[in-house]
């Protein structure tokens, strides 16, 4: 955890705040992978906010914050974060990175979902990557419009309204050369529409990358058993209790922050067993390997042997 000071605050569009954060101790912020997010604690909760720059030797972290529900962390930042305010945040996390072997990149965004795409666009410009952009917003609700004007690649489609965006996304997906990877960020409904269009057009799952806005509401899950390290000690994890909290009760405290499958701090190694992944952090390769899970939200479908003492 690092303490940051707000070094700048300005509007990113209707209902959107841009904050510039610098480490309070004067250190240089760590570089990050394009498309990363920063888990920020505000108003008693931790939310992940997309970083707006490409992460190459950053002098500060810029994040975009859409005002959320009253009482939430984003509303707290809108109401309370001023120049000089200190905030606590974890290190940048990458779960929406550009695929370096891609022949070209198709960026799809809706509303505030353009924020990680700005990071991708800056990286694409820096490294000369071929990129196409399709973004949509509500009428008069453009987000980070001037940055988009500046960064928009030659092949850019900007539309107003959900139906127009849906059509533009489908059209773009239908004519991408083999080797293209697509990246989508927007509200859950938008993400579902992109998935559906991509499936209709036979896009393989490995070419489509979705950045989720919100951690989904999760069910209580089924009970399962966890076996701890070499000790063989068994731990029963009932439905409705997370592995993280079951470990707490057993005296094993893992690092944590968001407890919603977003920040990735409570990652734990798994020696054997089938994992029901429910986080928004681990990628397909991590999941396929099955040797790591996030204890706050993910569960066992069978008995899990964990890499904990």
């Amino acid at each position: 955890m690092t303490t940051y000071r707000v070094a700048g605050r300005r509007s990113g569009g209707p209902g959107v705040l841009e904050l510039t954060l610098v480490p309070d101790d004067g250190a240089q912020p760590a570089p990050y992978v394009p498309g990363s997010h920063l888990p920020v604690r505000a108003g008693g909760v931790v939310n992940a906010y997309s970083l707006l720059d490409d992460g190459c030797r950053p002098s500060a972290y810029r994040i975009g914050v859409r005002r959320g529900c009253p009482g939430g962390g984003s509303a707290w930042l809108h109401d309370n974060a001023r120049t000089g305010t200190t905030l606590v945040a974890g290190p940048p996390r990458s779960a929406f990175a550009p695929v370096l072997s891609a022949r070209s990149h198709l960026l799809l965004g809706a509303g505030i979902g353009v924020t990680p795409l700005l990071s991708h666009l800056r990286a694409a410009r820096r490294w000369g990557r071929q990129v196409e952009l399709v973004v949509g917003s509500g009428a008069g609700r453009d987000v980070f419009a001037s940055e988009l004007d500046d960064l928009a690649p030659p092949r850019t489609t900007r539309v107003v309204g959900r139906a127009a965006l849906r059509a533009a996304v489908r059209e773009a997906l239908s004519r991408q050369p083999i080797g293209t990877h697509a990246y989508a960020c927007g509200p859950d409904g938008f993400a579902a529409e992109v998935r559906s269009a991509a499936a209709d057009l036979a896009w393989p799952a490995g070419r489509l990358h979705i950045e989720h806005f919100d951690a989904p509401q999760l069910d209580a899950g089924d009970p399962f058993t966890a076996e701890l390290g070499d000790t063989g000690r068994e731990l029963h994890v009932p439905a409705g209790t997370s592995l993280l909290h079951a470990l707490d009760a057993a005296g094993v405290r893992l690092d944590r922050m968001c407890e919603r499958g977003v920040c990735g701090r409570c990652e734990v190694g798994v020696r054997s067993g089938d994992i029901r992944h429910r986080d928004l952090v681990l990628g397909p390769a991590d999941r396929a390997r099955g040797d790591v899970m996030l204890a706050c939200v993910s569960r066992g479908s069978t008995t899990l042997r964990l890499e904990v003492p």
Partner: protein
Amino acid sequence: MRGDDTPFPARLTVPRWPSGVPDLPRALAWTFVRAGCAGSARCAIGRWRTQEPAGVVEAGDLPAGFFEGRLVGWRLAVCGEAGRVARVVAAATAAGLLDEEIVVNVESTASARWFCPACGATTTVPAGAGSAGCDGCGRRLQPREHWSPASGQFLCDAS
């Protein structure tokens, strides 16, 4: 073929071809490639053509520009002899296809492709060979159990 004798071995990789004729997943378009396919009882092309209408390309080497103009949604299915299938898969991978976009059926195994670490040449040898001279630099090659799915070649020791 040598195994791995290092104290901290890298994971060994050898080709793992499907044991039966795989079905074709959904795609917008297909191209089938015969890569040394002998049309034996294990040939998949006939079965695949009952599942999907698609052109069939006879390929020792894929024609120039084979991958140009292909769109995401297109898939490639390759049937034939292991070494030649590996070569087509390597070309497809280099063109940007993912594993999910390539379906493979190996009808027979008669050859293997070896990579020389000294000169970078590829030498095609009969399957099961224990050593051979490098086609590029003439060094003696001995294969390791270290096969690259991306290039379709075994890494060798060169002496």
